[in-house]
C-alpha cells in the first residue's frame, strides 16, 4: 500500500513538474504546480509529517498558488514568445542540468550513509503539538523574526503594487 501510494504520488508529482515546464500557458503551469504540491503533501503524510502536509496545502496550495493564479488572471498572461536571447542558457542548460541531477543521484546512492526504509506510521513526529513545542521553544527567535519578515513583505507588496509609476 505504501509503495503503491508512493509510486503513484511520485509519478504524479514528476509528471506535473514536467508538465509545468512543458506547458506554454502560465495557468496550466500553475495547475501543474498545484498537482505537484498536492502529491507532495501526500508524500509528507507518508513520511509522518502530517502538520507539514496540511501546511503545504494551506500555505502553498491555498495561499501562494491562489496568488499566482490571481496574478495570471489579472495580467491576462498569454502564452510566451520564443526568444533568441539567452543563447548560453539554451545551449549549456540541458547538459549542465543532466549532470546536476546525475551527480545528485550518484551522491544520494553512493555517498550517503545507509538510510531507514520508510514505513507509514512507524514514526509520526510531525504532529502539530510537537512542531508547536519546538517552534515556541528552540526556534522562537526565528519564528518571531519570520513574522517580522512577513510584515515587511506585506508592506513591501502593498507599496510595490499600489505605487503609481509613470
Amino acid at each position, binding site marked *: 500500500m505504501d509503495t503503491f501510494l508512493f509510486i503513484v504520488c511520485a509519478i504524479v508529482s514528476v509528471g506535473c513538474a514536467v508538465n509545468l515546464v512543458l506547458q506554454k500557458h502560465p495557468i496550466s503551469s500553475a495547475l501543474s504546480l498545484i498537482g505537484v504540491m498536492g502529491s507532495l503533501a501526500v508524500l509528507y503524510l507518508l513520511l509522518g509529517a502530517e502538520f507539514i502536509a496540511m501546511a503545504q496545502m494551506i500555505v502553498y496550495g491555498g*495561499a501562494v498558488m491562489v496568488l499566482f493564479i490571481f496574478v495570471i488572471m489579472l*495580467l491576462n498572461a498569454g502564452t510566451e514568445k520564443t526568444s533568441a536571447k539567452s543563447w548560453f542558457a539554451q545551449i549549456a542548460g540541458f547538459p549542465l542540468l543532466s549532470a546536476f541531477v546525475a551527480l545528485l543521484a550518484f551522491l544520494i546512492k553512493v555517498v550517503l550513509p545507509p538510510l531507514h526504509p520508510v514505513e507509514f506510521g512507524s514514526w509520526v513526529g510531525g504532529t502539530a503539538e510537537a512542531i508547536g513545542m519546538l517552534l515556541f521553544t528552540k526556534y522562537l527567535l526565528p519564528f518571531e523574526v519570520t513574522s517580522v519578515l512577513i510584515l515587511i513583505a506585506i508592506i513591501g507588496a502593498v507599496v510595490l503594487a499600489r505605487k503609481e509609476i509613470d
Partner: protein
Amino acid sequence: MGHIPLSWYLILSAILFGTGIAGFVYRKSVITVFMSIELMLNAVNLSFVAFSYQLQRIDGHIYSFFVMVVAAAEAAVGLAIILTIFKNRGTLQIDEVDSMKL
C-alpha cells in the same frame, strides 16, 4: 508492500529540483520562472522532511515550515514586482527585462 527506501524520496526530490531548474532556464515567462522557483523550494522541502524521517527528529519539519512561510512572503513581494514590471514594461517576457545592460 510496505518499505520504500528513503533514497527514493531523495531522488524524487532531486528530480523535482532539476525540473525546477529546467523551468527556470528554459521558460521565458516571468511567472512561470517564478513558479519554477517554487517548485525547487518544494523539492528542497521534500528533502528536509525525508532527512527528518531519517534522523527521527522534527527539526527538518521546522525548516520546511520556515521555507513555506518565507516562500509565501516571497510570493507576495515577487508577484507585486511582476505586477510592477508589467505595469512599466507591458511585458512578462523575462528576456525583454534587461535594461540594466548598457
